[in-house]
């Protein structure tokens, strides 16, 4: 890993990360604030006004009455796919394909650093920045819950929820990263880097629509992360996390591999 390059990555992309941290923290804080310990109350009343299919597409059909379940349903059911996905798409393209496309990657390769070292640094920034995002979300969740509803958040469960969501996002990020390494062109990098996560996202949303469409979820990586199943202890967090980890490592290796042997465009 190259420290000066990592510092440059931080400098270039810290604003992007901050925007997403602030945006998601506000959402999380508001959702926790909306919680009513005497029953989900007002929010459920509001949701009941919406068409049932719409609510189930958003993954909000099974709202738990506990605070942790409430957060899991509202924040980790739908928003957790959408926001980090956008972050990954933008960052993935920026880290490699953009520099290759505009030619500035040549400046990096004119220094005594191997392609592998450079590209691993770029991949590492992707992973680390996602860790930071989820670490902040965890702290915001614990902090805001502790302020408004002391003792009501199941911290261990919330931690598990964050960890799995974090590793899921890392996987998505590395999909974007892989295509960024593969293509010399930002257009292609974005087409695939955005297309595949959006496809996964759509499949997961559609699978919640009805019984007939539920099979679609099997084709989506997002379905592996099911916040309610984690809350109810229906899935093994260890299994989910190790699955994401293995896919992530494979994607990172593939990205580094294709980049280290390719011809850079003029």
């Amino acid at each position, binding site marked *: 890993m190259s420290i000066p390059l990592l510092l440059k990555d931080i400098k270039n992309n810290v604003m992007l990360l901050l925007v997403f941290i602030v945006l998601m923290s506000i959402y999380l804080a508001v959702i926790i604030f909306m919680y009513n310990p005497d029953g989900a109350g007002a929010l459920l009343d509001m949701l009941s006004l919406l068409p049932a299919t719409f609510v189930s597409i958003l993954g909000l059909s099974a709202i738990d009455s506990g605070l942790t379940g409430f957060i899991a349903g509202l924040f980790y059911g739908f928003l957790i796919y959408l926001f980090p996905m956008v972050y990954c798409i933008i960052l993935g393209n920026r880290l490699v394909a953009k520099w290759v496309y505009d030619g500035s990657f*040549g400046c990096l390769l004119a*220094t*005594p650093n191997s392609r592998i070292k450079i590209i691993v640094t770029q991949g590492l920034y992707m992973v680390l920045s996602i860790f930071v995002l989820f670490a902040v979300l965890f702290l915001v969740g614990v902090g805001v819950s502790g302020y408004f509803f002391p003792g009501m958040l199941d911290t261990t469960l919330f931690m598990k929820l964050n960890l799995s969501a974090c590793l899921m996002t890392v996987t998505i990020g590395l999909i974007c990263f892989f295509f960024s390494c593969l293509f010399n062109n930002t257009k292609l990098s974005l087409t695939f880097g955005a297309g595949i996560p959006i496809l996964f996202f759509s499949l997961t949303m559609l699978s919640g629509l009805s019984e007939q469409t539920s099979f679609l979820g099997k084709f989506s990586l997002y379905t592996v992360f099911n916040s309610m199943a984690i809350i109810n202890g229906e899935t093994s967090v260890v299994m989910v996390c190790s699955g994401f980890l293995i896919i992530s490592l494979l994607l990172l290796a593939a990205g580094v591999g294709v980049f280290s042997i390719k011809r850079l465009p003029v």
Partner: protein
Amino acid sequence: MIETRDITLKYSGSKGIFDLNFNVAKGETFGYIGPKNAGKTSTIRVLMGLSHPGKGSATINGLNCFRKAAAIQKIVGYVPEETAFFDGMRVKEYLNFITHMRGAVGSKKTQLRDSLIERFELETRGRIEYLSKDMKQKLAIVTAFMHDPEILVLDEPTNGLDPLMQSRFLDLIIEEKRRGKTILMATQMFENVERTCDRVGILKEGHLVEQDDIIQVKSAEIKSYFVRFEAHPNLEQLKKFGFGFKQFSDKDYEIYCQGDRIDVLVKVLSHEKVLVFNSNTQTLEEIFHKYYSQEEETA
């Protein structure tokens, strides 16, 4: 020190580079010349490990150019044909970044860097994207020379520089050469190699057509001179020594002379009163033309 063996890299159509074999010895300055699209940049990109040949191999200091690119970059300074810098970076910030990427921060290094900045009058304030084309080229030159590399690989290094800076750059090359550096300079400008190179390789449509001593290339080249005499000159004398000429007026002539007969011309002209004597810088195409027509004759 720099060696290529049968490197071939084909692009779509008939473009590319084909079976290139040349080597640049330690301490030698090699001019790599050819017109646009002859394959100069493609060759250099192979040498710099940005691309790899479909066939053949290239080595620098015995290291494979693609697999050992990082080790090679330690001892190489590279001026690309056109450098794309990072967006939103300031000049000093960029130079610091590259220095850090090279893993060295020493006072000696900044000394050399500052002297280069001064020498080329590089504007160091402001963002790189707002710099003019010649400033960007100067920045590329400073970047390539600031770590005092053993080997210099230069791709059209004087591109976009004004004549004064071109001349300063060539002075720098001559100094570096004296210090024993190995230099490969790709260029379309014959003047660049004339002043600095020991040997040249001439590239035509991806094939190396000639590798020669610079003196030999120069002696084969036919130069033309614009001469204005004070009075009507003795044309018989010129004809007698076999110089061709074109007459513009009673006193204005263009005289053609082969590179190895310049002294004869000077002797002939010494009998006349010469008011103006201008050499017409020959374009590379004209020199090529000579090589190409030779090829056809022998064929």
